[in-house]
């Protein structure tokens, strides 16, 4: 097996090689460090390499596995951490402040160390997780992030680094964050699997706060199955995060479900989408119809976008009030940020609370709908990746469906996975949205789709990231 093949194996495949001794954690770590330093840096996806710590942790994992001490499926597996999440000994720049460091590391970082995972790099984020508003990919101290499938395109944000390094085969998984789509949307642009778990599943202690009632951390991986394995390692209650759920979470079960699903397709969710996005979505629905029932559903007619705008406007201003009020935003790269967030200074408290009251109606009604299905489905985005240097406009018709914001505001889980290639050979995605605490249902369904369609075998074409000649089941896509 050459390094290129090794770089795109999933976590279970790597685990078999690590436990059989065919590869060592040290060898795997060196391969990934090399890819991060090469393609990762060329994509502007790497902020800080943590080579010394990584090599020590790899040696420790190697010794432990050799001695029969097995910490579970992430033991000896390298990963990257979005740079809004703290790790001991490394800067945590939030994409904006190069010298910033924290003494106490994030709970998610500690949990991954306990699981035997090996931190290789802090990876790029749009500055302040995109929370100040931005309309160009260059809004990061790392520079505009490049898409592994086409280096002239961008990754989407704000989890730009996690999606890029996973999509490029530089690490098997990374941890991203999501306030209003920051895991889901980069997953769609880069052909990775991204899981936004139920609000409170994963402790946010040690991560930058953007919107307290919306922020979530989650895995970005090569497959939905990998997302489940990583979530199991990082989920659970945490006294440092009062929003964390008391429930434990178990992904690994003797017999995960692969058939007998009930799917709801959100009516009109691909209206206005690019033709290839629609075509790939219809192909996915045909495959899902072989393993379950598929029926069209209407999302409750509720003001998702307006509630999100008001909640985010108020909470971002509050989370960064001193910085914004003191004019700190004028030092950011994103031109849009300079005036954008000051509007929050004159947003009445009663309007914020009204939005949160309507949000409860949204959560109740959407939760009731979602609980009738194993997953609600729509394209993750209606478009494929746009240019790396181009201004973008998120609200283009067809770019966004309402399912994303319904899941954002309801705190319910959603996973996005690759479902084919579109214009210019760029990835398209499908999202599976579930009711609260139903991660296993949506992951099982996503795994079943990936297994039937072979989409996890799709690869960017080479280290320079030009897509288009990947093969599925022997056929060029």
């Amino acid at each position, binding site marked *: 097996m050459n390094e290129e093949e090794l770089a795109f194996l999933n976590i279970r495949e790597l685990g078999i090689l690590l436990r059989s001794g065919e590869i060592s954690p040290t060898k795997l770590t060196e391969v990934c460090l090399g890819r991060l330093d090469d393609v990762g840096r060329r994509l502007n996806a790497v902020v800080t390499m943590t080579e010394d710590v990584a090599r020590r942790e790899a040696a420790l994992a190697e010794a432990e596995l050799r001695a029969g001490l097995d910490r579970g499926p992430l033991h000896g597996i390298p990963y990257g951490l979005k740079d809004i999440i703290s790790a001991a000994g490394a800067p945590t720049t939030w994409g904006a402040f190069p010298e910033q460091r924290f003494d106490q590391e994030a709970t998610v970082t500690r949990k991954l160390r306990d699981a035997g995972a090996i931190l290789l790099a802090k990876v790029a984020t749009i500055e302040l997780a995109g929370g100040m*508003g931005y309309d160009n990919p260059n809004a990061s101290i790392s520079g505009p992030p490049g898409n592994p499938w086409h280096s002239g395109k961008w990754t989407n944000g704000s989890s730009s680094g996690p999606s890029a390094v996973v999509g490029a085969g530089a690490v098997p998984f990374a941890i991203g964050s999501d306030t209003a789509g920051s895991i889901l949307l980069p997953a769609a642009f880069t052909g990775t699997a991204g899981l936004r778990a139920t609000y409170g599943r994963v402790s946010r202690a040690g991560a930058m706060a953007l919107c307290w*009632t919306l922020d979530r951390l989650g895995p970005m991986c090569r497959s939905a199955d990998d997302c489940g394995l990583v979530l199991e390692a990082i989920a659970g*209650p945490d*006294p440092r995060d*009062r*929003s964390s759920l*008391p429930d434990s979470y178990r992904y690994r079960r003797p017999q995960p479900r692969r058939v007998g699903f009930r799917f709801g397709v959100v009516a009109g969710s691909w209206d206005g989408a690019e033709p290839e996005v629609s075509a790939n979505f219809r192909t996915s629905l045909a495959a899902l119809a072989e393993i379950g029932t598929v029926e069209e559903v209407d999302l409750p007619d509720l*003001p998702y*976008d*307006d*509630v999100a*705008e*008001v909640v985010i*406007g108020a909470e971002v201003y509050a989370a960064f009030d001193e910085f914004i*009020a*003191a*004019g700190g935003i*004028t030092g950011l790269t994103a*031109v*849009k940020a*300079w*005036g*954008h*967030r*000051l*509007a*929050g*200074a*004159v*947003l*009445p408290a009663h*309007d914020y*609370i*009204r*939005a*949160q*009251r*309507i*949000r*409860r*109606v949204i*959560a109740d009604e959407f939760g009731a709908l979602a609980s009738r299905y194993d997953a609600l489905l729509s394209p993750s985005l209606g478009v494929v990746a746009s240019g790396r240097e181009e201004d973008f406009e998120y609200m283009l018709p067809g770019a966004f469906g309402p399912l994303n914001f319904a899941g954002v505001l309801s705190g319910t889980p959603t996973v996005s996975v690759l479902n084919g290639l579109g214009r210019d050979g760029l990835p398209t995605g499908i999202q599976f949205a579930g009711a609260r605490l139903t991660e296993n249902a949506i992951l099982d369904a996503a795994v079943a789709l990936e297994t039937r369609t072979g989409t996890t075998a799709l690869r960017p074409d080479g280290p320079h990231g030009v897509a288009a000649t990947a093969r599925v089941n022997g056929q060029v896509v």
Partner: protein
Amino acid sequence: MTETATGSSYPRLSDGSSAAVARRLVEIVSLCHGEALSADQFDAVRVCVGAQLAAAERLHRFPLTNDHEPIFTVTANGGVPA
């Protein structure tokens, strides 16, 4: 007591009043933060204040009753699980 929501009675501003409110709100931003921002940046403030007001106005049309609580809750133990 549970009320039945039949429609919002939140007062609706005329277009002229809404525009005047937006101008005043931008003036407030200017008073508080004027030294830090250029004319271009205030254009961005103006656009965003307008969008925010429009979003809030649409939310004012959403029927709510007194018993509709916010999605967040406050607990006597500070949120720490008992």
